[in-house]
């Protein structure tokens, strides 16, 4: 038998049917659903008289539209947003799927709730009508985003029509330096490969620096696989994975746990397995990074300067000039001289407890710079509760930040959390596209510690300077 990659193994374990041209029917173990990309799919089921084939494998939670202000029990003001959340309430009830309504303490961003509740397990196929489904790959699950037609397809058949992607290996060797985080890894990879570098591939992240990451750090890395164009990102499960999963509400127990563990331990790439593309970065070479432009590939070390359009080639020249104009930046200026108006800490990329701890470590005993608006939005109600228990919430409040309820919030600004035109934001989210955080809003992506540092100084800041300060 020829050696297989981790992706090959999970794929092979889920093929229901293969056509002559290689098109496969792939079985889906977990289907996560949120309010924005599902209403048309449920409507499609109703119109055709179809049902949800496996409601016990389908988990729904509203996250994109929900207000994150403390008064949210009074309801959603925006009528369209309200209708969308109400539609999910009704669809979850009518079709009998697992549901965490806004009022449930377990509610949060779908990609944070899934792992938190133990729905996401190694070796599974996981899909959701959301591109950041890649997050779940941190468990060694094959997880990717799908469109609404595919959501309907999975609801009706518990399968997806798929062709296999190619295998890509991204290895991060060695160790990270102080102040460098999972977010810096994932941004640096995209900076190196470009946003289309992973198109047609499933990435397996490996190497010492990946193995050294916590599960939450691994989720941050896999979360942005899609920003590199890959269908999915994967990390082989190990003891850290099993430890994280064990005891979660929907994780297997007793004899089933032992059986699961036996299989999970086989989920790694065989020696000599073929990768179609290999990218290697040295952990020691990765610096704390920020984005300067309007594509997640516009990544530079914080010690760098704003590039000029002429620094690029081909179609990127026009795109870079457009980015500079949109971002209101002048080539040659130091990144650390870029003043900010707003700080957003949260999202499915960086809204977990360790992210909040990292931000709080920088903010402890400090206050945000005058005139800065800063909000911390936990990824779930349970993350929020834990942050309060650990005293992190109080650090944020004492620093002058807004401490919010769980949701996607200003990552995509579908709820009232938005930037105004020209407003500049240090964000821990995943996309710096034009208008992403609000029309005309300017987004710089970075790690939670870097965003916290920027909040304190009022400009993009090398967090390492502040760490030295703390010592």
């Amino acid at each position, binding site marked *: 038998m020829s050696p297989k990659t981790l992706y090959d193994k999970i794929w092979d374990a889920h093929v229901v049917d293969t056509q002559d041209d290689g098109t496969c029917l792939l*079985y889906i173990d977990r289907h996560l659903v949120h309010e924005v990309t599902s209403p048309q799919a449920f409507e499609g089921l109703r119109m055709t008289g179809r049902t949800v084939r496996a409601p016990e494998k389908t988990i729904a939670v509203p996250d994109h539209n929900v207000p994150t202000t403390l008064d949210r029990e009074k309801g959603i003001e925006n009528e369209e947003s309200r209708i969308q959340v109400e539609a999910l309430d009704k669809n979850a009830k009518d079709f009998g799927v697992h549901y965490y309504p806004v009022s449930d303490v377990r509610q949060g961003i779908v990609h944070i709730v899934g792992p938190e509740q133990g729905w996401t397990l190694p070796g599974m196929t996981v899909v959701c009508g959301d591109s950041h489904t890649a997050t779940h790959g941190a468990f060694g699950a094959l997880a990717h985003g799908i469109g609404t037609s595919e959501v309907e397809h999975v609801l009706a058949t518990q399968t997806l029509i798929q062709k296999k992607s190619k295998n890509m290996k991204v290895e991060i060797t060695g160790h990270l330096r102080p102040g460098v985080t999972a977010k810096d890894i994932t941004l640096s990879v995209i900076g190196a490969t470009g946003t289309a570098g992973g*198109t047609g591939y499933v990435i397996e992240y490996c190497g010492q620096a990946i193995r050294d990451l916590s599960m939450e750090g691994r989720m941050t890395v896999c979360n942005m696989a899609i920003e590199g164009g890959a269908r999915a990102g994967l990390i082989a499960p190990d003891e850290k994975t099993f430890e994280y999963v064990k005891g979660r509400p929907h994780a297997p127990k007793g004899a089933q746990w032992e059986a699961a563990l036996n299989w999970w331990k086989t989920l790694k790439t065989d020696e000599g397995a073929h990768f179609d593309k290999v990218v290697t970065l040295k952990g020691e070479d990765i610096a704390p990074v920020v984005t300067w432009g309007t594509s997640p590939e516009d990544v530079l070390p914080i010690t760098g300067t704003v590039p000029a359009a002429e620094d690029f080639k081909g179609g990127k020249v026009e795109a870079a000039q457009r980015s500079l104009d949109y971002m209101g930046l002048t080539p040659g200026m130091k990144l650390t001289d870029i003043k900010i108006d707003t700080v957003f800490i949260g999202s499915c990329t960086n809204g977990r407890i360790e992210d909040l701890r990292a931000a709080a470590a920088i903010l402890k005993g400090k206050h945000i710079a005058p005139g800065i608006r800063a909000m911390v939005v936990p990824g779930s109600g349970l993350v929020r509760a834990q942050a309060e228990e650990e005293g992190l919430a109080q650090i944020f409040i004492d620093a002058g930040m807004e401490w919010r309820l769980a949701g996607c919030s200003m990552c995509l600004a579908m709820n009232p959390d938005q930037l105004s035109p020209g407003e500049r934001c240090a964000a821990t989210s995943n996309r710096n596209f034009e208008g992403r955080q609000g029309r005309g809003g300017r987004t710089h992506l970075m790690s939670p510690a870097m965003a916290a540092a920027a909040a304190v100084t009022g400009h993009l800041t090398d967090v390492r300077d502040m760490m030295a300060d703390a010592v």
Partner: protein
Amino acid sequence: MDKFNTLTGIAAPMPLVNIDTDMIIPKQFLKTIKRSGLGKNLFDEMRFTQDGKEIPGFVLNQPAYRNAEILVAGDNFGCGSSREHAPWALLDFGIRCVISTSFADIFYNNCFKNGILPIVLPQEQVDALMEDARKGANARMTVDLEAQTVTTSDGQSFPFEVDPFRKHCLLNGLDDIGLTLEKVSAIDTFEKTAAQARPWV
């Protein structure tokens, strides 16, 4: 889903690389619970000012391209979110075909589910088509899915690749779910076997 066979129409040039789904349909229009009616907001923030006035420089606002049915676009078209609202908006505007050097994976899949044909061609061929598109409304491009060719207004023809199954579905306007449900016994069998092998799932 409407069938796609041949299409002869105006092609609009959009050479910008990395046109993302937030550009194609900004998030404020994702609050709909319908699939239709998004064409008026296609490329909203590039097409209209904040107070709703047309931005004259934007290609689809130019008289020649108001009725475009084909887009010739820069690399990595449709990157970003999984929102199927992007192909819904393109379709509702009247775009049935997008040509680029590469597409983001989810967007590419979503196109086929909605009767839109995404065509991948090498850079120099996309450049030639971009030039042809710049000629305006009198230059009609022809896309023939059966023959797998794109032909410029002056008769230059480029063959393209398309997955045979997707081609078959597009030519016949087939519903994926209906096709898959024909294999329901295979799904039943798989579920039984998987429940034995991985009972914890």
